Structure formats: structure tokens, C-alpha cells
């Protein structure tokens, strides 16, 4: 052997001391040096002498890395343990994935909606400014264009913008006409929010007025869908309703207005308002957004604008009793979502606790089985810290697997949750699984891993010799039993809390679905049409269109009757107007504002809304006849209590027929127009033939399945005017079910969470009783040998399950009653303490306990006394 080969052998032998992850580089370095070592003829063994230094080097590295190396080794061991018991690993991982997954999904929702700042420049300084009508308990009314001009002079706001939303028909290009959501905005809006078109330009101040031609900016979605993402679209002129508008820009993807009105606009239009429109102080159609001036607080701004509002209210009849309110955009955008999201978050957090308790039970059971092995390790010299490291690694590996599976599950669950929650998640907010969600998941995963490790490590054998002497079975019983029972009781208690919450929500949803909306929603198909093209500028043409379409629809097979209405109940729109009642002296402290509906004669018949008194409209109530109106019961009871309102007269304060007296010819029953959970507003109905509104919903009563009439409805409209788009087509039952989608979504999420928690608790009860029976086999054997009946053994085991569940249920019930107030804002006609719901939940949980206890109890009765005693 040459000296070089000898030196290399030494290095290779010593390399084993070097930590594994450093070994390759270490050996490479030493090999390179040895191979190139210049030989000194006088010292042929110099290379060997130098190679001996490798030992000191390796020992140094090993001593440095000893701790890290042990951890890596333990992690490998933990991984092998996990793979060696696939069924156990799968059970723990699935349990954790369930808990972690839904929490990741709900965190993504919370983060996107409540935690993350809105995507605008300095969003904390942005506010909405609303009018209020305190005398009618209305605290959010759109402002007028005149107010916008007035408020801009206030020093409290550095910037202000005006927005109005709606729907328009676009066309005039090579594409078919289409109905799209539009936001009409002033030039100040985009700079104020800190958003700008991705291509092209925003609006100029001149374009706020009719001095400059009106222009539009496309949303990214409309640009891609309608124009194939063609940048040459800039400069093209399109028809927006009946106006020509040039396209000057395209917004970036995801750009949206804040607040309840924003989020789904496909077209942004310049304000393009005439001097008369800017001076209008009666049309409350505009949402006002503003930025607080530097150094101005919200309360200072509110105070300044309230002083101005009080002065205006005193000076101008149009603003009598009108107040103002300033709301930060963050609060406005997310306030309706907060209670729902917090309840759902609370629910899934409880599920995580249940899943963690369940996983702890499983890990403790396994640790009990491994105590003999741990005792052997201790006897062979393993230190306490090494045993702790082993336990931690075992749990961390399982938690990590659970976390990874949970992240995948959470991403899927989020996709399911967002549509379930309906409007809870504002459309302007992007919600998804991103780095923050992954970080959150990693955080709870690590926390759980460490927690489980600590629990398991806390139950290692107290005495090595005792553990070595006893069998694995008896050791486990002595150390983990009490903790396991505590965990089972905790799981049952948490499951009861969740089941109660879900039960209360279910109760609310059932009650909501049985609310009498005031009309018969069965077999009704509804869709909307807007007469916006030049052809319908004159009122008679609109009336003729309505009559023609209704006639065609009623002539279609399968249609029992057809009608039209300006705002369909639960359709998300309502129109209201100030009203004056003949003979009622004007009261400066009272502004009468009544919802206005414009209907065709057979609307009440089609909707099956009962007449209280008087008559419905007839075909003769047209523009040549006396202007007439029908009021609803709520209005009649408010303004003519114990009197007959028929033949009284009312008139509206604004609009084209303001000043004209309408004779009341009938009283109709109330309809829950806004939502099923809100009382009917006061309403006035007017004949369409006298008002000829340009946008309305058509309602068809079908003989059979209403959705089958969709094609016939489109054909009827197309036959009258092929250029009119038909949109928002839904059966009335779909509208009703959509109106409480948020409550139903919350209920569904809580119910799924509660059922999962209950199932996990059931498994925990089963596991705990089964385990306790296994431990007690010798004792049961002795009792049977001494003459105990099998029935008494059976009942004894079952009693154990019932007692554990009973304690858990009692604790859960107490917690539910204490926390009920959190849920009460989401409930409908259901008390948070509803005894029926709680009784059903407790009965269900106790049944679960009995079912979970049956199999172990039967096992206990089958113990053979002779075998049990012999094994002992």
C-alpha cells in the first residue's frame, strides 16, 4: 500500500465520524488535498502524518453538530415509525387534516375580508358619506349631485368622488347587445383610490360634465370576454344605452370599487352630467366617497359635515330632516360579513380543538403501547432529553403530514365555502390560499406537533424498572387513563357547543323558509328587460312594448298569466319617493317616503297577492284616465288607521309626475320586498300604463315547471324587439332561496363542522371505552368467575360511556348557553337559549354515546373467565 493510499484509508475511516450532511464535502476536500500533496522524498510518510489531522477535524465537526444530527436521526426514525403503522398514521393525519384544513380555509376568508387592508391607497383615510333619514330609522341613503358639489368645499376632506351604479345595454359594435353592470364615476375617483387603467387613461375633470364627450373604461373581464383582450380597442366607439361613448382605457384585473355597491362593475363611465343634473338636489342616486384631509380625524370630519347638513336642512325644503353620516370604507365593506365570519371561525376553531383532542387520544394510546420500548431505551442509556426529542419528532412528523393534507383540503374547502356564504364575501376582495395562509397553516401545524409531543412526553414511564417488569398493557392504563377521559369529555363538550349552534341556525333557516312572503312563489318565472334604446324614448312606445310582450307571453303554451313590475320582491332593488297626503298638514319633523312599484293590471293575480279592499288596476287605467294608485296594508294602517283610504289622494314629491294627485283605488296585502326576515315596507303601486317606466321585471305564472318557459320568454321578447337583452332570469323560488343564502350558508358550514366534531367525539368515546375494556379483561374475567351476570357487565361498560358523555354534554350545554349571545344576530325568530334545540342536541349526543359504547360492551360480555385468568 502506498503512503497516499494509506492516508486515504485513514480519511475514509474517520469520515464516519463526520455528520452525514457534511460528510460528502468533507471527504471531497480531504481527498483533493491528499491527492495533490507534493511528495517530499525525504519524508515519504508526510502525507500520512497530515491525514491524521482529519481525525481532529472530524471530531470537532461531530461535537459541533451532535445536537442537530440527533434531531435529523430522530426525524428519520419518526418517519419510519409513521410508515410502519400506516393505519394509525392515516387516522391521525386525517383527523388533523380535517381540523387544520377547515381552519386554513376560514383563515383565508378572515384574512381576505377582515384582516388585510383594502387594495387602495391609504385605505384607512377613505370614507363613505351617506344621507340619513333619522325620523324613519334609515341611516344610509344615497346623496344627490348637488350635495356632492356642496360637500367638496368642506375642509375635512382632501378629495371626494361621486359614484352611481346600475346596469346598461352595450352594443353598436360587431358583438351582440349585452347587459352589463356599470359604475358612473367622477374623474376624481381613480386618483383618490390610487387605482388607474392598465392601458389607456382614466377620466378628465372636463368629462364630468357634458362639455366633453362621454367616455368609458372597460373592466379587464369585459375587455377579454367581448374584445378578446385586443389593445386596439382604445378609441373604438360603442353604444351605451342610447349614447355613443369612446373606449379610453382598460382597468387592471381585479380593480373594483369598495363597499356594497362595488365589485362587479364591468364598465366604468365618466360622469358626463349636464349643469341641470349637477344642480339636482332631489334625486338621491349617488354614493359619495371621500378622503379625510391630513390631520383630520373621523369625528372631526363627521362634526364638520353634520354642521353643514343641519344648515342645509334648515335652508332647503329638499333636505328637511335629512342628516349625514360618515363611515370608513373598511367598516362599510366588511361590516355585514363580520358576524358571520366570526361565528364560522369560532366553529372551525372548536372543530380544530376536537380534532386535536382526538389526535392526542390516539397518540397517548400509542405512547402507552410503546412505554415498554421507551423503558428499554432508557435502560440502554437514552437520556430524558433524547426521549423528549424522539416524542417531539414523532408528533411533529404526524402533524406535518396532517398540515400538508390540511392545506390541500383547505384549498378545496375554500372553493366550496365562498359560494355557500353568498354575499358575505365582498366581490371586490380576492380570497384565496396564498403565502399568508400557508404560513398560518405551518404555524398551527408546528404548534400542534409541539403540543402533542409535550403531552406524550409528559406520560413517559415514571420508573424504568417498573415499566420493564410490567406488560405494556398495564403500564398504559396507569399513566394515560385519566387524561384520555378528560380529552373525551372535552371533545363531547365542544361537539355539543357546535351542534347547538348548528341546530339554532337550522331552526332559523327552517323558520325563514316558512315565512309567508305575502305572495305565492310557486311556478313563477321572472326575468328583467330594460328599454334603453332610442326606440323607447317616448312613453307610449314603452307602454306598447309592455302590452305587446305580455300579450305574447300569455299566448305562449304553458303560461297561465304574465305581468310586469318595476321592482320584483327579493330582487335586490327598490325605488322610493317622498309622498304628500292630501288633507294631511305638512309636518316639518316628518318626511313621508314610500316605496314605489309600477305594475301591469294582472300583477297581483299573477303573484297571488290578496286585495284587502278596493279594486286592482284594469286595462282602462291608462294615460288618458285619472291617475290612480293602490297602497299596501302597512301604508294604510300607518296613515289612515281605522279609516278607509279608498278615494283619498296622494302625490309624489319628485319625478316626472310629481305634483299630480293620484286617487287610491285599492289596498293590497303586504309583501316582504327587501328580505324574508324584514317586515314589509310601505308601498304604493301605480299602473305601468300611466308611468311607463323603462326597466322592469316580467313575471310568468306557469302551468307546470316555470324554468321550462325560459326559451318561450326569450322568444316573446325577441319577437317584439330583437335588440333587447333578457337578463337575470330566475324562478321566484330561486330568488327566495338566494335571499337567505348567507344564513343558510352559515348554517351549512356550522352543521358540517358540528357533524364532523360529533363523529370525532363518537370515535373518541368508542376508542376510550374499547381501550378501557381491553385493560379490564382480567378484572371482568374475575367478576364473571365470581358469578356476575353478563348483563351487568354489559350495562356497566355502557354506563361508563354514558357518564363520560353526560359530563361532556352538561359542560357543552353550559358553554352554549353562555356563548349564545354571539350567535343571536344571525338567528331568525329563534332564541339562543331555545330549549327544544338544546334538548334534541343532548338527546342526539347521548344516543351517540350509547351507539359508540355498544360494540365494546358486547366485547366485555364475551370475555372468557378461564382464558382471562390464565393470561393473567
Amino acid at each position, binding site marked *: 500500500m502506498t503512503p497516499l493510499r494509506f492516508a486515504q484509508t485513514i480519511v475514509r475511516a474517520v469520515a464516519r465520524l463526520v455528520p452525514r450532511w457534511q460528510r460528502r464535502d468533507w471527504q*471531497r476536500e480531504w*481527498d483533493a*488535498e491528499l*491527492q*495533490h500533496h507534493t511528495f517530499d522524498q525525504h519524508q515519504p510518510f508526510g502525507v500520512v502524518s497530515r491525514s491524521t489531522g482529519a481525525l481532529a*477535524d472530524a471530531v*470537532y465537526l461531530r461535537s459541533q453538530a451532535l445536537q442537530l444530527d440527533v434531531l435529523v436521526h430522530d426525524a428519520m426514525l419518526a418517519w419510519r415509525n409513521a410508515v410502519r403503522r400506516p393505519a394509525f398514521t392515516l387516522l391521525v393525519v386525517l383527523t388533523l387534516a380535517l381540523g387544520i384544513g377547515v381552519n386554513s380555509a376560514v383563515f383565508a376568508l378572515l384574512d381576505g375580508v377582515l384582516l388585510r387592508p383594502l387594495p387602495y391607497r391609504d385605505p384607512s383615510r377613505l370614507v363613505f358619506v351617506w344621507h340619513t333619514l333619522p325620523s324613519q330609522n334609515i341611516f344610509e341613503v344615497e346623496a344627490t349631485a348637488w350635495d356632492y358639489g356642496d360637500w367638496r368645499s368642506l375642509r375635512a376632506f382632501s378629495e371626494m368622488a361621486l359614484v352611481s351604479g346600475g346596469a346598461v345595454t352595450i352594443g353598436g359594435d360587431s358583438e351582440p347587445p349585452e347587459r352589463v353592470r356599470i359604475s358612473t364615476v367622477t374623474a376624481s375617483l381613480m386618483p383618490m383610490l390610487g387605482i388607474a387603467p392598465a392601458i389607456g387613461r382614466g377620466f378628465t375633470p372636463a368629462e364630468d360634465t357634458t362639455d366633453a364627450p362621454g367616455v368609458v373604461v372597460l373592466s379587464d373581464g369585459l375587455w377579454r370576454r367581448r374584445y378578446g383582450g385586443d389593445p386596439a380597442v382604445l378609441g373604438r366607439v360603442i353604444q351605451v344605452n342610447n349614447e355613443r361613448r369612446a373606449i379610453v382605457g382598460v382597468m387592471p384585473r381585479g380593480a373594483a370599487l369598495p363597499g356594497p355597491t362595488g365589485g362587479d362593475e364591468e364598465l366604468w363611465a365618466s360622469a358626463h352630467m349636464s349643469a341641470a343634473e349637477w344642480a339636482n338636489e332631489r334625486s338621491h342616486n349617488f354614493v359619495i366617497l371621500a378622503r379625510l384631509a391630513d390631520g383630520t380625524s373621523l369625528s372631526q370630519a363627521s362634526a364638520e359635515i353634520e354642521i353643514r347638513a343641519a344648515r342645509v336642512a334648515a335652508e332647503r325644503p329638499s333636505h328637511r330632516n335629512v342628516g349625514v353620516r360618515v363611515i370608513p370604507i373598511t367598516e362599510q365593506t366588511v361590516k355585514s360579513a363580520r358576524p358571520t365570519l366570526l361565528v364560522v371561525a369560532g366553529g372551525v376553531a372548536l372543530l380544530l380543538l376536537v380534532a386535536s383532542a382526538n389526535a392526542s387520544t390516539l397518540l397517548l394510546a400509542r405512547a402507552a403501547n410503546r412505554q415498554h420500548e421507551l423503558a428499554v431505551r432508557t435502560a440502554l442509556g437514552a437520556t430524558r432529553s433524547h426521549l423528549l426529542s424522539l416524542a417531539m419528532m414523532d408528533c411533529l412528523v404526524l402533524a406535518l403530514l396532517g398540515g400538508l393534507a390540511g392545506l390541500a383540503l383547505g384549498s378545496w374547502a375554500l372553493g366550496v365555502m365562498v359560494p355557500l356564504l353568498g354575499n358575505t364575501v365582498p366581490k371586490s376582495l380576492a380570497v384565496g390560499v396564498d403565502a399568508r395562509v400557508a404560513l398560518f397553516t405551518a404555524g398551527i401545524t408546528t404548534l400542534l406537533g409541539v403540543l402533542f409531543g409535550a403531552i406524550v412526553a409528559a406520560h413517559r414511564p415514571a420508573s424504568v424498572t417498573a415499566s420493564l417488569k410490567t406488560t405494556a398493557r398495564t403500564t398504559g392504563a396507569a399513566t394515560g387513563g385519566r387524561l384520555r377521559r378528560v380529552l373525551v369529555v372535552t371533545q363531547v363538550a365542544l361537539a355539543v357547543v357546535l351542534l347547538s349552534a348548528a341546530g339554532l341556525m337550522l331552526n332559523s333557516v327552517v323558520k325563514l323558509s316558512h315565512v309567508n312572503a305575502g305572495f305565492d312563489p310557486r311556478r313563477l318565472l321572472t326575468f328583467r328587460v330594460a328599454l334603453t334604446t332610442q326606440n323607447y324614448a317616448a312613453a307610449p312606445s314603452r307602454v306598447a312594448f309592455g302590452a305587446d310582450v305580455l300579450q305574447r307571453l300569455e299566448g305562449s303554451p304553458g303560461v297561465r298569466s304574465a305581468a310586469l313590475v318595476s321592482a320584483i320582491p327579493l330582487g335586490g332593488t327598490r325605488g322610493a319617493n317622498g309622498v304628500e297626503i292630501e288633507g294631511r298638514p305638512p309636518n316639518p319633523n316628518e318626511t313621508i317616503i314610500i316605496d314605489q312599484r309600477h305594475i301591469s293590471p294582472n300583477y297581483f293575480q299573477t303573484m297571488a297577492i290578496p286585495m284587502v279592499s278596493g279594486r286592482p288596476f284594469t286595462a282602462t287605467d291608462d294615460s288618458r284616465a285619472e291617475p290612480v294608485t293602490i297602497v299596501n296594508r302597512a301604508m294604510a294602517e300607518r296613515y289612515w288607521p281605522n279609516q278607509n283610504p279608498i278615494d283619498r289622494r296622494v302625490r309624489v314629491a319628485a319625478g316626472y309626475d310629481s305634483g299630480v294627485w293620484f286617487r287610491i283605488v285599492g289596498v293590497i296585502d303586504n309583501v316582504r320586498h327587501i328580505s324574508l326576515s324584514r317586515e314589509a315596507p310601505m308601498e304604493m303601486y301605480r299602473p305601468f300604463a300611466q308611468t311607463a317606466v323603462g326597466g322592469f321585471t316580467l313575471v310568468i305564472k306557469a302551468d307546470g315547471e316555470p324554468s321550462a318557459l325560459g326559451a318561450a320568454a326569450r322568444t316573446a321578447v325577441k319577437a317584439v324587439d330583437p335588440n333587447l337583452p333578457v337578463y337575470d332570469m330566475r324562478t321566484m323560488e330561486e330568488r327566495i332561496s338566494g335571499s337567505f343564502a348567507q344564513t343558510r350558508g352559515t348554517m351549512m358550514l356550522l352543521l358540517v363542522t358540528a357533524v364532523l366534531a360529533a363523529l370525532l367525539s363518537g370515535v373518541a368515546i368508542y376508542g376510550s371505552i374499547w381501550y378501557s375494556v381491553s385493560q379490564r379483561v382480567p378484572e371482568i374475567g374475575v367478576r364473571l368467575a365470581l358469578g356476575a351476570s353478563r348483563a351487568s357487565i354489559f350495562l356497566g361498560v355502557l354506563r361508563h360511556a354514558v357518564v363520560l358523555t353526560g359530563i361532556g354534554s352538561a359542560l357543552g350545554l353550559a358553554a352554549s348557553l353562555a356563548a349564545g349571545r354571539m350567535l343571536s344576530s344571525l338567528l331568525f325568530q329563534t332564541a339562543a337559549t331555545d330549549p327544544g334545540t338544546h334538548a334534541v342536541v343532548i338527546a342526539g349526543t347521548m344516543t351517540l354515546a350509547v351507539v359508540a359504547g355498544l360494540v365494546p360492551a358486547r366485547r366485555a360480555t364475551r370475555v372468557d373467565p378461564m382464558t382471562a385468568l390464565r393470561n393473567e
Partner: protein
Amino acid sequence: MRMTLATTLVMQAIGAGHRHGFDIVEVTGYPTGTVYPALRRLERDGYLRSRWEAERAAARDGRPARRYYELTASGVKALEAAVDTLQQLDAARLRVKHAR
């Protein structure tokens, strides 16, 4: 980190352009069992960094690639401080000698 004479000399050698293990062993005269642990310690504490020589350059010289060490900015500072201390020690020793 404790700056021994050996660590100071190893750093000085690297600063002077002797960049791989046996070269440093040659110029400092310390055994490999002293030089290598010193290199590990200096690298761990951020006074040195190491990189592998490009395979192509090593192949041109007909040898395997070496691990080269170089001083980091904090290594340069630490070396200056250590040399300074040694010089002060030397001056003090001379003063004591003359005083005798």
C-alpha cells in the same frame, strides 16, 4: 471568538493568498489537526467563507477541485484587531526587556 495565535496565523495566511488547507498548513507550519478545526471555527463564526474551485480550472491543472477559503469583511476586521493586539504585546515585551 477566542483569537489564538494559531487562528490569527491561519487568517493571516489566507489574507496573504494561501487559500486551501494544505497550503495554509505549509505556510503556518501548524499540523492539519490544528489548522482544519481552526478553519471550521472561523467559517462557523463568519470570519471566513469557502467555495469550491471550478471543476474546469482544476481539471486544467490535472487535479480534483479544492475548497478555497477567503476572509469575509468581518474576518478582515478581526484579523486587523488580532494583529494589533499582537503588536502591542510585542511592544510591551520590548519595553519590559529594556527596563531590565
